[in-house]
């Protein structure tokens, strides 16, 4: 088979930090190519380059042997490269059929609704998608939306489609349907790049798999070589020095957070407790249920079961309930969910504390800015420019500002979701120190992360979640990088640790 896309020594720097350090890789026409790697290995940067979101710093992309320039999303679209992200893009008020052929109705001015429906049914038939073509897209489930989005790519005659964790939100039967769909795509000669943290999916589906590590290709495996031990070996980055930071064990006697039978529609009843000073690390494949814990505790989704903090039961129906209960949620998507990009650093930091800073209902500017100054100093936010809009700060300093929002309120429970995603390398250590400091001060801390390195650096206890249930929970000292990685990519718990 010939290479459809060939990457030659692709590099990408972000302000001096090398994220991709020379990727050379080829995708063959009509293959399903798995892409594996730890968080921060460079997968998402690579996809963004292939879809035109980022331009590479150097290196070449060849398509059918000829160099192509992909600097904008529309370039990728024209070259026949498409991607499905987790938030699929459909027009909610349009029907399934209208969505599938959107942009490709044919004709000059007039549209023919019968033809739209016929074309869509034809495509659905070809790819084996069994749905009512006249249903409104807004009534579809997450899985159905994903599949309709795939169908929309089909008519666009893409040559290569990148799927980023497509099964994260799908149940097992839905995953099976999706795999059937992907197989049809391959039969049509379309190349699929399949990104996943789940090794069994990659084994089942992919013809080849490439493992990225630390911005480089650490190996490409043929189908029959894909094996847990080999993949783990290739994924773990032994060269990079371990962060000389760790959690010596700060847990006290008193239980702060107690979950009893916490369950959602995607989480099986879960009972666990976090003690004062304890940092519990939670990991697993994306969509395995970690986000359900975060949503329930943040008051963002319906749940059943009991949540007790310092012995007092709480019902968390909204984020303000969670705040009153003493839970601080530091979400992954800081820009959207935690910061006001155009407000200044000082305003962002002091916003949740305004109630405490106000006198007779009026905000005292002086106490607000002195509070901001204290946060900036305590968290080492750089540069020390309280009046500058927060969007001009780096990811790491934005993250510190989000943490700073909660300091005044003395939350009892801190929940960090991917605390160092998008954070520059230099600031990671500082953020770890802040998190450890919060635990040392007696708070219960939960760190939800897909980075094994991060969990080993921070946690006192580590829980692994698979398919909505804890598959292993064990003290940090019983984990090594290899064993933890093995536990996250396959549900099995290695005999050695149980």
């Amino acid at each position: 088979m010939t290479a459809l896309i060939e990457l030659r020594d692709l590099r990408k720097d972000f302000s001096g930090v090398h994220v991709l350090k020379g990727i050379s890789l080829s995708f063959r026409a009509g293959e399903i190519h798995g892409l594996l790697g730890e968080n921060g290995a460079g997968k998402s940067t690579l996809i963004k380059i292939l879809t035109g979101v980022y331009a590479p710093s150097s290196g070449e992309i060849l398509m059918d042997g000829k160099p192509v320039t992909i600097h904008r999303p529309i370039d990728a679209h024209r070259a026949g490269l498409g991607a499905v992200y987790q938030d699929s893009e459909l027009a909610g008020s349009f029907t399934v059929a209208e969505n599938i052929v959107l942009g490709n109705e044919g004709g000059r001015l007039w549209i023919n609704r019968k033809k739209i429906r016929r074309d869509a049914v034809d495509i659905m038939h070809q790819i084996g998608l069994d749905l009512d073509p006249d249903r409104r897209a807004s009534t579809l489930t997450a899985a159905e939306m994903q599949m309709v989005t795939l169908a929309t790519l089909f008519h666009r005659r893409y040559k290569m489609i990148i799927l980023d964790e497509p099964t994260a939100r799908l149940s097992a039967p839905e995953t099976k349907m999706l795999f059937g769909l992907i197989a049809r795509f391959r039969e049509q000669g379309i190349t699929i790049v399949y990104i996943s943290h789940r090794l069994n999916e990659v084994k089942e589906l992919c013809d080849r798999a490439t493992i990225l590590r630390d911005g480089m290709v650490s190996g490409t495996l043929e189908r029959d070589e894909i094996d847990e031990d080999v993949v783990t070996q290739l994924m773990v980055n032994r060269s990079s020095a371990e962060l000389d930071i760790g959690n010596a064990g700060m847990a006290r006697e008193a239980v702060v957070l107690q979950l009893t039978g916490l369950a959602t529609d995607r989480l099986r009843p879960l009972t666990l407790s976090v003690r004062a000073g304890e940092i519990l690390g939670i990991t697993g494949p994306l969509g395995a249920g970690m986000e359900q814990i975060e949503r329930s505790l943040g008051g963002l989704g319906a749940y059943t079961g009991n949540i007790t903090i310092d012995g007092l039961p709480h019902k968390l129906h909204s984020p303000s309930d969670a705040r009153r209960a003493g839970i601080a949620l530091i979400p992954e998507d800081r820009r959207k969910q935690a910061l006001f990009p155009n407000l200044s650093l000082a305003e962002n930091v002091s916003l949740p504390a305004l109630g405490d800073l106000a006198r007779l209902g009026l905000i005292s500017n002086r106490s607000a800015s002195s509070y901001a100054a204290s946060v900036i100093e305590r968290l080492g936010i750089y540069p020390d420019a309280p009046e500058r809009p927060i969007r001009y700060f780096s990811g790491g300093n934005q993250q510190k500002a989000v943490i700073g929002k909660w300091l005044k309120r003395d939350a009892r429970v801190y929940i960090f979701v991917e605390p160092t995603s998008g954070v520059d390398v230099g600031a990671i250590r500082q953020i770890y120190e802040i998190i450890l400091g919060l635990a040392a001060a007696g708070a219960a801390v939960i760190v939800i992360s897909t980075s094994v390195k991060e969990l080993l650096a921070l946690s006192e206890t580590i829980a692994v979640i698979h398919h909505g249930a804890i598959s292993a929970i064990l003290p940090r000292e019983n984990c090594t990088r290899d064993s933890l990685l093995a536990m996250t990519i396959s549900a099995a718990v290695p005999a050695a640790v149980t």
Partner: protein
Amino acid sequence: MAGEASTVSAPVKTGAASTGLAMRLLRRWGTILVIVIVGLLFAKLSPYFASVSNFNNILFSMIVSALVSMGLTFVVAAGSFDLSVGVVVTTASIVTALLIPDIGVAGAIIGGIVTACVIGLINGLLVTYARLSGIVSTLGMMFVLDGINQFLTNGYQVPVDYSETAFMYIGQGRVGPIAFPVIILAVVFIIGHIVSTRSKIGHYIGAVGDNPMAAYYSGIVVYRWVIVAFVMSSLFAGIGGVILTSISSSAQPVGGEGYLLEAFAAVFLGATILGKGKPHLLGTLLGVFFLYMVSSGMNMVGFSFAARQLFNGLVLILAVGANALLNREEIHLKFI
């Protein structure tokens, strides 16, 4: 994979399927039901209300408003706002009246309508390539046009000579019992309805307004259709301006602004008709009809203007509010 099949169930989105039949019927026909009930009420209270001549009167009085509202429907469907529609009526009206003595009726009509389209084009370019919000750019355009209207007229009305009988027929002619401009309205509505339901114009404007990202990734040139929506809006307002000039045999320097708020009321009321939840021309037309029917009915029964305004406002809030309740989303954080 096999052993894991039973673990996690798919989240089920509560959609139309879970709401009862009564709710669905209410959603679809609720607004129309209100219109019919109010109509019957007026017919009972006033012997003159339910007559052909009154029906003709209502249609005649709503012509310009209906055209403006139908145009605005395209912009709202595209997900934007056009606050300049009302003033565009005045501008088109003035340009037409000013041009008639110089270049004749046909040229003047074309001139008025083309002027309106150019304004729409500028609005469209401002919200797309210049990246201004629809509210801001069309608000600015509203003031600019108001200024231009004053300059063009020096603040006086521009009369049209009574000898221009062909032009006067546009607004004042009759075909049997039906006023000629009502026929124009009907023709414009039918063409507009076909364009919005069967052409790429309506289809793509709807897609862009629903989910611009999806439209963009589908290879639709999003900017083009936003601009088209603004041109359609001004085009319809321009036609309204020409008819208004003919009806009143003159162009007034001010007064078009009044159509703006009526148009928004009609578009949002119309979006609830037939439970579509998004703007559509038929709904808008019925929305305008409702507003003018209430106006006429309350007038006949003897209510004051104040009471009419109060009633219209309450109906708008109730209809749109009831529709939103029947159409609940999980988290609601949009306040525009």
